[in-house]
């Protein structure tokens, strides 16, 4: 008996061990692999969803675009308690600033996800994936790649241009040198011009898809913004891209300004593409950081305090509608070094997002909206010496917020109108992550920052922003330099 049991045990072992190689050949249970993750229609759609997801998972697109555009410029102060954000405000950004590396790596991760879709989509043999959808998927991924390179080139200038997926860790495959600014823009525009031909105007009647996915309207709008931002813009091309936006079947329309930011009109007619948040686990944590105690329920000092200079700009223009849609004053129990050095002072708050919703708001950031594009059009018309047509565009934007048409003194010359448009953009796009780029594009960033007078109430002295030519671009993150010997630092 006992012997029999032993025999059974021994035999069991033999059977068990003889399948040794199979025993060790384990595949992930809760993950796919590069070998099996991109075979069907639904899988490539999932990869594309993953590429869009970078708009939520990259902190740059959540709220750091506001820090690097509005706080870095004259629109807002750092607020809050974060030393690194004070450094952004005071233009003391060093290569070890941790947010630089975070954004650089997050945005390149987004690009790699787009590259993957571009590479893989044509290899899908699943018959349920139609040729039309294949083209669209490719177009969407090209748009995303272009969007992210546009972000990179504005922040850092020429950056490594990676347009394929990295499959090897060999130094020669990963240590990629910086391309020139022009090369990056050329790639962006090439991608967008291809995307325009692949993408539809709409995906049907559902705005929550049409404003979520890249469309040909979005590709044209982004192309216009990229073309005008590059060092030597071709204004004719800018205007032709915008013309295509205006002609789009999507029928983009300006809407009542406050409705753009009242949280009841997501995916509205003016929106070309916006980051989709639903609240809850698809929520936006950004608004909680900005909104005052009465809305957020918090009692701690909030970030991105509107500056004295910016509030004055609204007041000088008598622009109540946009001011009230963008800024909320509230008395608080903390002190603010610019607005009130005693507790109980009334302090302005960033207010374009209206709901904190416990760190999980459904409020969004527009990636592209028509109001912005109309002012870009005005800029392009002005630069191509069509001042009167430019004024018409500016007035469209002014009239909808009950401001009068521009007077002669505001468009007496190309230079004057250029400043007028820049000012209009500031009020229109306050807190929408545009200001620094606008100042750079109009070559106003040095003069604006160095003539800015912001009194620090603790000392009674104005802040010295000490803006230099080098500070137009951010330093390449030190951690990336440490990893990639092919990179060269920007002038510091």
């Amino acid at each position: 008996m006992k012997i029999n049991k032993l025999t059974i045990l021994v035999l069991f072992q033999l059977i068990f061990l003889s399948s040794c190689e199979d025993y060790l050949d384990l595949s992930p249970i809760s993950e796919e692999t590069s070998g099996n993750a991109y075979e069907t229609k639904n899988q490539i759609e999932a990869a594309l969803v993953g590429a869009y997801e970078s708009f939520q998972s990259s902190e740059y697109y959540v709220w750091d675009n506001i820090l690097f555009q509005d706080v870095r410029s004259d629109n807002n102060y750092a607020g809050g308690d974060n030393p690194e954000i004070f450094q952004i405000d005071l233009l003391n950004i060093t290569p070890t600033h941790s947010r630089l590396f975070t954004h650089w790596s997050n945005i390149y991760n987004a690009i790699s996800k787009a590259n993957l879709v571009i590479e893989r989509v044509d290899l899908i043999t699943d018959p349920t994936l139609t040729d039309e959808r294949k083209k669209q998927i490719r177009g969407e991924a090209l748009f995303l790649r272009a969007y992210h390179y546009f972000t990179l080139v504005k922040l850092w200038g020429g950056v490594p241009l990676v347009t394929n997926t990295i499959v090897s860790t060999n130094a020669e495959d990963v240590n990629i040198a910086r391309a020139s600014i022009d090369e990056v823009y050329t790639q962006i525009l090439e991608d967008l011009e291809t995307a325009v031909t692949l993408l539809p105007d709409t995906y049907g009647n559902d705005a929550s898809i049409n404003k979520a996915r890249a469309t040909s309207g979005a590709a044209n709008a982004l192309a216009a913004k990229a073309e005008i931002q590059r060092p030597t813009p071709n204004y004719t091309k800018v205007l032709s891209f915008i013309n295509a936006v205006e002609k789009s079947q999507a029928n983009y329309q300006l809407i009542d300004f406050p409705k753009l930011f009242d949280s009841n009109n997501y995916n509205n007619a003016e929106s070309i593409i916006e980051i989709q948040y639903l609240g809850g686990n698809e929520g936006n944590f950004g608004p909680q950081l900005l909104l005052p105690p009465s809305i957020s329920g918090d009692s701690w000092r909030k970030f991105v305090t509107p500056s004295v200079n910016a509030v004055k700009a609204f007041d000088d223009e008598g622009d109540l509608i946009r001011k009230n849609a963008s800024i909320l004053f509230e008395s608080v129990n903390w002190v603010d070094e610019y607005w009130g050095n005693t507790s109980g002072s009334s302090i302005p708050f960033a207010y374009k997002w209206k709901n904190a919703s416990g760190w999980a708001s459904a409020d969004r950031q527009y990636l592209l909206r028509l109001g912005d594009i109309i002012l870009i059009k005005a800029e392009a018309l002005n630069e191509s010496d069509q001042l009167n047509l430019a004024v018409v565009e500016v007035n469209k934007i002014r009239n909808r917020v009950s401001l009068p048409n521009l007077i002669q003194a505001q468009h007496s010359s190309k230079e004057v109108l250029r400043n007028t448009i820049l000012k209009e953009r500031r009020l229109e796009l306050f807190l929408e992550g545009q200001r620094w780029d606008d100042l750079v594009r109009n070559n106003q960033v040095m003069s604006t920052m160095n003539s800015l007078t912001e009194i620090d109430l603790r000392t009674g002295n104005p802040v010295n922003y000490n803006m230099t030519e080098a500070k137009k671009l951010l330093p390449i993150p030190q951690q990336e330099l440490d990893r990639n010997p092919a990179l060269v630092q920007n002038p510091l």
Partner: protein
Amino acid sequence: MNKFNVKKIMKKRKLILLLIFLATATISYSQATLKGEVKDNTNELIFGVSVIIKGTTIGVTTDFDGIYKFNKEIPANAVLVFSYLGMKTKEVTVNGRKVINLILEEDSEQLDEIVVVGYGSQVKKDITGSVSTVKAETLESRGNSQLGSLLQGQATGVQVLSSSGKPSQGFSVRIRGTNSINAGSEPLYVVDGVPTTDTRSINPSDIDAVTILKDASSTSIYGAQGANGVVLITTKKGKTSKPLITFDTYTGFSQVWKTLPVLNGEQYRDLMTELGLNTNWGNFTATTDWQNKIFQSGLSKNFQLSVSGKSEKTNYYVSAGYTSQIGAVRSSELGRANFKINLDQEINDWLKVGSRIAYTSYRDVDINDNNNVNAGGVLLGALTTPSIIDVFNDDGSYTSNPFQNWENPFASTDGTQREYNSQRFLGNLYLEAKFLQNFTYKVNLGVDNFNGIYDSFLDPTRTGYGRAIKGQSINSTNSTKFYIIENTLSYKKDFSKHKVEGLIGAVTQKFLWENSSIETRNFATESVTTPNGGSEIFNASATKSEKANASFISRINYGFNDKYLLTANLRVDGSSIFGPKNRWGYFPSFSAGWRISNEDFMKNVSFINDLKLRAGWGLVGNDQITNYAYLGRVGSGANYPFGGAAQPGTFPASIENLKLKWEESAQTNIGLDVSMLDNKINLTIDAYVKNTKDLLLNAPLPTSSGFNNAIQNIGELQNKGLEFSINTKNIDNENLKWNTNFNISFNENEVINLVGQELFQGGIAGGRGEASLVREGESLGILYGYIFGGVDPQTGNAYYVDKNGNSTFTPTSEDRTIIGDANADFIYGFSNSISYKGINLSVLLEGSQGNDMLNATRIELEGMSDPKNQSTSVLNRWRQPGDITNIPRASFGNTDNSRISTRFIEDASYMRVKAITLGYDLPKSIIKKLNINSIRIYATGENLFTFTNYSGLDPEVNAFGGSNTVRGIDFGTYPQTRNILLGASFKF
């Protein structure tokens, strides 16, 4: 190894197993011709005494009842040799008797001590590798809930890294330095033959002996898992036929041994005014001593009951224990209940089965440490919360800093209800069959099943975050299922002067991990704390993963004339971590020993009892990295909404690397064992070099690749060191005994090659960058930062020394350099135990010399850049031009004055009186009347005295826990505590 070769090995195995089967079936038996029982001088029967007919190799051993039997005819004039480790060998002439009973006497000689080694045991004198043992007496001499604390200072080459004093911390052990950068560096723990990882659930009271295998020749039998050393834990078994009942209990008290002086309310107000911060100070009049509120007197209790014994062919040990601990920091707790059943049964003369079963139920409440007050860190919260606020606001919510919503540390200790519960079942069943006299076949099936549940609930009212998200409940579970199946065949034979042992076997192991988590938010009340009370499911996920290993092991031991000893091992290891091309690794080792004392020329050197020279070389491997590491993994969860609903999204999580292979460590060891002066002095010296190559390095990639890093076989590490251990019996007579052990270990670690990469790690809060660097030519654990020059008397700003030696206020990242080394030059332990009649005293000193610490707690306490309370050292800060000081001025929002620099590097060398125990064995005369065998009462003091220049709360901490590379950083880490234990143990 290719498939063909594997099959060949398989075929051989089949043949061998068939042979075993045939052999076992043909054994026959006969009646005993001579038998007897063997006892010790306390009249207890002894198991395992070897009884040999002198001048032959014929012999038997006693069974569990101390009974031996000869089945052959024994010549009437034969002489029987009785030998047993720890006992004096006795010779008895048979004189035709059929029954010979015998009493063996204890021997002070220790050379015959049996040491458990991988897949077997060896007599100490025959060991050729480097092995340390810690015996039950050491573990039992004082109460402690953790094995790690008991090992500290006890063995050379074994560094117990206590990264904090938290009851729930567990411990991290490094054997002969850190061998890897990204792969695991913890040794393998094997409890009664079952490998395990979490040592917190092991009850020290159940342990009979701990063997630490340090060099490759002793660990390579564990191949892939042996690279970091192996800790073999053997639990107790019955020793007497009369059941032995023991009851142990202790009660302990603990507290932090130091507090740090911080600013009072008035000084805080001065500082805030200097920073330009003003508030209505009249509203803030409290005088709260936060350290006093947060640090409390800890209490621990422990009860252990065990019954052990043996009868006929059965040997048993059963125990139950309960430990509870309330920590010295508010709200930290630990509780553990253990059950243990050990059973061995001889079915007949050749077949034996047995089992080791342990069940542990564990619970703890953790403390948020290693974080600043912004992130809810309790220790830094207690230090940087100003005294001018109370604990609660009028509405019952927690107060916060007057200028920032940094809530006081109670929000962290009391604001979140949280606990971690786990259950673990660790057990094995073995069957051992002896056949053909010299062969033993053993099959061992082991399981380790572990289930952990973490619950936390943040109520919707008392904390700011809780209010914002309207309450939050998290329930996460993790379970590990592990099994191991081992088949071994061993052979043992002595031919005249030759002693041969051989072992072959096959081992398969498999892990299955399962994790799940659910988080809900939006609670109406705090009366329901589980996730069902929340209206919004914020996160719900579950994942699984697996790992499998298959191995073939073999070993040969050969001894000649008790002088020359040879050991050779080969283990072939396969792991699911690697791709088909590099799945198999081959790990051989060779070692030799020369017992010089047995040579003829040493015969006259009478003061030396034993002298053995050992040398060994071996290769061991490491596969302790992410599961499925070679595959290009694609993760889920990158979801994004289209059409108003989240759509499933995927993302590439890693780059495929089919070339990925075993990390290999080649180790060479030379050692010397000396016993002198009638075994009163025992000295062991070892020297070793370990070269680890093809490191499984999670090497950073330029992130423009889209990936942050990739696991590659890159680089080379070296550890080399010297170890000395000396045991002396200073006095040894009937009433007075005095033993001393001193051990000291030197280890030097160097990164030999990292293909030019530099790894920056150890970022600490506040955006001051990374404080740790891995660099070629340096050791792991160096600290990196700026060189602090001083404080400019004109401006009050800190200046630094740049790379050209010039002073600057604005150093760039290139000016950073190596500013400290967290590695100790040496670590040591010194223990003395003295007993006089029933009184015994043992003192353990333990220390570490030459290690630096970055006191990042001080950066928080002296930074003066935000409204945190600061330490009193900032009273010396610069205030006006002309002030000469080394504390810069206060400067709001500016971290330039408090960069990671030499200013915060301190010498963290220490020597501490780790434990003093005074015990008393009650005289037999008294306790006999109570029908009790023995009663011992004792008092232990732990960490009573600490000698260090380190200014922080405790030098024995690390904010990065058991990290391989980031060491020596104190950032509000829970300190080691001073403990007093009062205990008693009873034996019935």
